[in-house]
């Protein structure tokens, strides 16, 4: 008992800091979402669930939510598939291994804003090299391609992290089950599908959760590359909420939207988690 109390005493300062740094803003935002607080009229008069109803009645917010769902599915899916592919390639005994590692790891080290600026030039419809190669595709100016282009730039950066995490996962897998599969007559592809992938599942699920959270919060790339346009083709929800807060100066409305987003994200993560624990 005494030991337990001692443990609490040791943990307390950290917990207090955590409560202050994480807990307080979360609770404050929750409280705000039930008021009509704006920067211009900073009053804490309660408004009930009105802000949530307003958010759910805003067709542009709903559009942003739907668009974000599509975007998350696209980016996370591509990131995992390409990351896995790269990880498997790096796992082979290729020559110049160290060099490949550095190249694959590099995008991770660039700030998203930097990534945005680099790709803005590469994909520039008049001056960019890729637009030239693709016969002048208007990557960000055409509503048909803008979201996909944004997603690809995002994936370019995220794949780096995914590949390294998956490579670490592959490295730490026991060798024997894979060899057993070969002895049992499996081709390398069959062995990968039926043995490696299932063994890698915990790593994949953790990566899935991390990537989903990252992509739901995509903001910087939109800011640098498209500002949500053309039209509202790339108006992702995090960027939408940011504008609600800092252009609309409506902190309470933004908080309500933020909480709706948090709720949806939690549901998604819970679903992933259930899928992982059900072996």
């Amino acid at each position, binding site marked *: 008992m005494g030991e337990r109390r001692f443990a609490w005493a040791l943990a307390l300062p950290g917990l207090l800091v955590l409560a202050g740094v994480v807990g307080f803003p979360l609770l404050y935002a929750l409280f705000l979402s039930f008021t009509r607080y704006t*920067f211009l009229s900073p009053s804490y008069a309660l408004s009930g669930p009105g802000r949530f109803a307003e958010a759910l009645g805003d067709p542009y917010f709903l559009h942003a939510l739907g668009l974000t769902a599509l975007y998350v599915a696209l980016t996370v899916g591509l990131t995992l598939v390409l990351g896995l592919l790269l990880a498997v390639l790096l796992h082979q005994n290729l020559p110049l291994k160290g060099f490949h590692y550095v190249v694959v790891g590099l995008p991770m080290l660039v700030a998203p804003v930097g990534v945005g600026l680099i790709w803005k030039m590469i994909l520039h419809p008049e001056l960019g090299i890729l637009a030239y190669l693709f016969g002048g595709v208007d990557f960000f100016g055409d509503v048909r391609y803008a979201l996909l282009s944004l997603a690809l730039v995002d994936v370019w950066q995220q794949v780096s992290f995914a590949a390294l995490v998956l490579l670490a996962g592959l490295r730490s897998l026991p060798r024997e089950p894979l060899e057993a599969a070969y002895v049992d007559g499996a081709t390398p592809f069959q062995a990968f599908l039926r043995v490696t992938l299932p063994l890698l599942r915990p790593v994949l699920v953790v990566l899935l959760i991390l990537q989903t959270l990252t992509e739901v919060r995509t903001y910087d790339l939109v800011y640098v590359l498209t500002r949500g*346009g053309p039209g*509202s083709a790339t108006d992702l929800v995090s960027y939408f909420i940011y504008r609600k807060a800092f252009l*609309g*100066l409506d902190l309470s409305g933004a908080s309500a939207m933020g909480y709706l987003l948090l709720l949806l994200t939690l549901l998604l993560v819970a679903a992933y988690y259930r899928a992982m624990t059900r072996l």
Partner: protein
Amino acid sequence: MKRWLLAAAVGLGLGLAQGVVLRALMEDVPETRIIEELLPEFQRQTGIRVEFEKVQYSAMHDKLVAQFLAPTNAYDFLQVDFLWAGEFPAAGWLEPLEPYVKASGFDLSPYFPSMLDLVGYYRGTLYMIPMYNYAMGLIYRKDLLGRQDLKERFRAQHGRALTLPRTLEEYVETSLFMAKNAGVSGAAMQGQRGDPNFMEFSNYLFAAKGDYVDRNWRVTLASPQGEKALTLYVRNIRQAAPKGALNFNLDDTFRVMCQGQAFSMVTYWWMLPQLDDPRQCPKVAGKVALAPMPGGVGVNGGWGWAIPRNSANKEAAWRFISWVESKEIVLKRALKGHAPTRKDAFQDPGVLRRYPYYRQAEAIIAQAKKVPIFAYTAEMEDVVGREISLAAAGQKGIRQALQDAAKGLEGLLRKAGLLR
């Protein structure tokens, strides 16, 4: 011993009064460094030291708001972009300046009325002194207008001479002609949604004699003039603008124009010296000229000086503002390239000798009109910009987009308490 201590204390007190330090948040641009170079002069005259904290434009608004909400502002004076010139006074964050003007006998008459309207008065009260101007006009390629083959072909096609366009219709017609015949884009347009496309479209709207609101803040955007402006805007961006224009901002349009790949751009008048600089833009230097927006009226823009209500050194701050805006210092600034807001600077022979295009600039500023400035100007840019972008992308009809933009604007005006 006692006497010695007293003397020291008195000395220290005097030293403090002498050593007032004013701090201000400034945008990190060459213009700020021009003023910075003149600061020692101010210190010699008054003993007041001034320190600038220089940051990127995008960081300024949030930093300022945080300081307005603090008990004492870290900044004793500041520069206010016209986009915030409604928000800051509406929130009660700025000190009214009339008492200072009266007490010091500061003369407001040299300022362009359009500038005082933009970054001076808010709903009848003076909160700012105009500091810097960035009204918008047309920059175009003289060489293309003068090319013989183009002249002949234009006359054959349109039955009139190829000249500087005088109306919005003529401008878009010329732009389309150049796109088809001159091997360049007709107009380097900044179609990115938000501030870029809102500002650009506003020129079209004013040139078509339309406006966003009337005197009583009633929304007039969805008018025949508005429809004409948006129709011509969409036609120009879809048929005569460079590929990717729907996502271009100012930098992108500048690059296209600088590369000699466009006939014209609607932009800030001080872009002219940049484009006319043979080191920066060797392909077009000497071939570009400035004119008012076809139709005569373009969008006004600018910065103003202001003193926050929670400033700790208001008197000293005003001494700085009245010094930096005195005729002598304004001329010095203008000669170093700082865009002035006083008529006397535009008419000064020395300045004109140095910058001949200030004649056109003066005409632009005198006619320039402001977009609605109120608490939610930034959100208005977002809402209207979205609808313009939807129309330009072909996702919404002209009329529908205008109606939705008008509805959004109306909501914001209502939220701001300007409409009931």
